C-alpha cells in the first residue's frame, strides 16, 4: 500500500478506537476554544457595534487598533501573555502560566479584535434609512446596540464564526502559554504539531480530521442560524 494510504488507514483506526487520550485532547480543545470565543464575542461584539454605529471621541484610533489586532500573529499574542504571566511578570502571582486558563486568555486576545472588526463592518454597513430610523427611536445606548446587532445579524454571526475559526485553528499562542503538556494543556493543534514532529503521521491526521469535523459542526450550526434569521 502507498504511504498516504497507510497514513490514512492508521488515522481511521485511531478514530475508531477513540481512546482516552484523544477524548481528553478534544474536550480541552472545545473548552478552551469555546470559552475564548465567548469572551471574544462578549467583549468584541459590543465594541464592534459601538465602532460601527460611530460618532464618539477616539473611534478612529480604536478602529485602527482593532483592524491591526485582527492581523496580529498568534505567537506574538502568546508571547505578550507569557511575559505578563511569567513568574517575575506583573501577573506572575496568579500562577496560571502553562494552564488552560492562560490559553483561554491568550486566545481571547486573538478573538476580541476579530469579533469586533467583523461586527463593526456589519453594523457600519446598515443602510442610512435603518440608521436614521434607529436614531429616531429615542432608545438608550444598550437597546440601540441590541437592535443594531439584531439587524446586522448575518454579519454578526459571521463575526462569531470568524472568532471561533481564529482560535480553534491557531497553534502559536496556545503552544507558548500552554506548553503542550500531555494530559494538561495539549489541544488538537499542538497535538498535531507534536505527532508530526515525531513522524506519527497517522495520529496527526486523525487529530486533523477531528479538528475539521469540529469546525464543520460549529460553523454549520452558525450558518443555519444565520440563514434562518435572514429569511425571517
Amino acid at each position, binding site marked *: 500500500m502507498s504511504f498516504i494510504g497507510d497514513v490514512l488507514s492508521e488515522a481511521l483506526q485511531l478514530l475508531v478506537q477513540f481512546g482516552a487520550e484523544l477524548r481528553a485532547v478534544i474536550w480541552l480543545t472545545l473548552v478552551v476554544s469555546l470559552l475564548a470565543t465567548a469572551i471574544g464575542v462578549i467583549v468584541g461584539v459590543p465594541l464592534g457595534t459601538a465602532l460601527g454605529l460611530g460618532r464618539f471621541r477616539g473611534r478612529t484610533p480604536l478602529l485602527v487598533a482593532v483592524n491591526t489586532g485582527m492581523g496580529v500573529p498568534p505567537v506574538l499574542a502568546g508571547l505578550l501573555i507569557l511575559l505578563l504571566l511569567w513568574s517575575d511578570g506583573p501577573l506572575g502571582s496568579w500562577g496560571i502560566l502553562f494552564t488552560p486558563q492562560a490559553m483561554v486568555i491568550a486566545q481571547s486576545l486573538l478573538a476580541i479584535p476579530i469579533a469586533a472588526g467583523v461586527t463593526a463592518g456589519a453594523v457600519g454597513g446598515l443602510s442610512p434609512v435603518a440608521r436614521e430610523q434607529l436614531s429616531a427611536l429615542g432608545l438608550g445606548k444598550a437597546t440601540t446596540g441590541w437592535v443594531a446587532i*439584531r439587524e446586522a445579524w448575518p454579519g454578526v454571526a459571521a463575526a462569531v464564526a470568524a472568532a471561533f475559526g481564529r482560535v480553534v485553528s491557531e497553534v502559536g499562542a496556545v503552544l507558548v502559554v500552554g506548553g503542550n503538556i500531555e494530559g494538561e494543556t495539549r489541544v488538537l493543534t499542538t497535538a498535531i504539531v507534536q505527532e508530526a514532529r515525531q513522524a506519527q503521521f497517522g495520529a496527526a491526521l486523525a487529530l486533523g480530521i477531528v479538528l475539521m469535523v469540529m469546525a464543520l459542526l460549529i460553523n454549520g450550526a452558525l450558518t443555519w442560524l444565520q440563514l434562518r434569521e435572514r429569511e425571517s
Partner: protein
Amino acid sequence: MPSSGSRHGDVPAFLALDLRFPEDGSIVSVDRLSIEPGGRLVIFGPNGAGKTTLLRLLAGVLPGLPPMDTAYLPQHSHMFRGSAGWNLSLGLDAEQTVWARTLADRFGLNPDVYLDPARALSGGERQRLSLARTLARPEPWVLLDEPLAALDVADRMSVAGALVDSLSGKGAIIVTHDREEAAVLGERLAVMVGGTILQEGPVAEVFSLPVDDRVARAVGVANVLDGVADGIEGPLCSIRVGPLHVWGLGDLGGGAAARVLFGAEAVTLFAGHDASAGSARNRWPGTVTVLRETGRLFEVIVDAGPPIAALITPGSREALDLKPGAPVVLTVKATAVSVIPR
C-alpha cells in the same frame, strides 16, 4: 451658527439656522420659524428645498441644534428584523405600546399583522405602524416627514384626519410637498424653497395669496375655503362656504366641518353675470377685485362672497376685458374640488 430663541418648554418658538453641509453642499438658512405649542405647522416646498434637512436638524439626527424634546418620523420608515408587534413597541413602554396599538387601529392597520415579520408588511402598513409608534411617544412635539406619502391615495385623507385627531394637544411640524396634504394637516404653512422659508402664514392665506412668483411657482395658486357640509349626492357633497354652495368630491355630511380645496387653474371665468356656458356644477357670480401678473399668467381675485383666485392667460384677459370692478361668473367642475374633513 445656529441659535434658538425664546422657548416654550423644550421647544423653541423660533429658530435661526444657517448651516452648510459639506457632504452634499446643501444649505438650510432659516431666519425665523414660528411654532405655537400645540399648533400644526406644515413645511411645504418642492423636492430638494431643504425640508427634510430642516426636520433632521430639529430632530437632532443632524448635529447643529441644542437637543429638543421631539418625536421624529423619518421620510422612509424602516422595519427592523423581528415581528411587526415588536417593531411597534420599539422605544415605548408598556402603556405607550397599548396607546400605539390604539393609534395604529385608528390609522387602519389590521392587528393580525403584529405576529408577522415586520418586513413582510406593505409600504402602507409600515407607514401606519411607524406613524402610530411616533405619535405614541411622550414628547410634546412631533416632527413628521411626508407622513402620508407611502399610503394609497384612497386612504390618505382618512389617515390624515385620524392623524390630526391623534395629535391630542401635541405640536407638530409636518413636511410635505403635496398641496392637499398640506391643506388637511396644517394650520399654518411655511413655504420653503432653496433652503429658505419664503412665506409663512395660515394655510388658506399662503395658498391663495402667495407673496411672490417663487412662492406661487412652489405652491401653485390654490383656493382653500372652510365651511360646513350640507348635502351628499352620489360621489359629490356640498359644502356651504358663506353664501356659496361648493360641490366637490367627498362624502361628508351632517353638518361636518369641512375644507374645500381647488387650484386657481381649475377656475374658469365668464364675462358679465348671465353666462350660461359649460356644465360645471359650481357657478358663482362675483366681482374682480385684484388683477396681477404672475410670470406668464395673470392671477385674478374675484369677490364671490369669499375671495376666489383664478389663473388666466394674457389672451383670456384681453378677450374678457377684465379689470377691477368688472362683473364675472366663475365656474369650477365639481370633480376638480377636493373636500376634506376639518
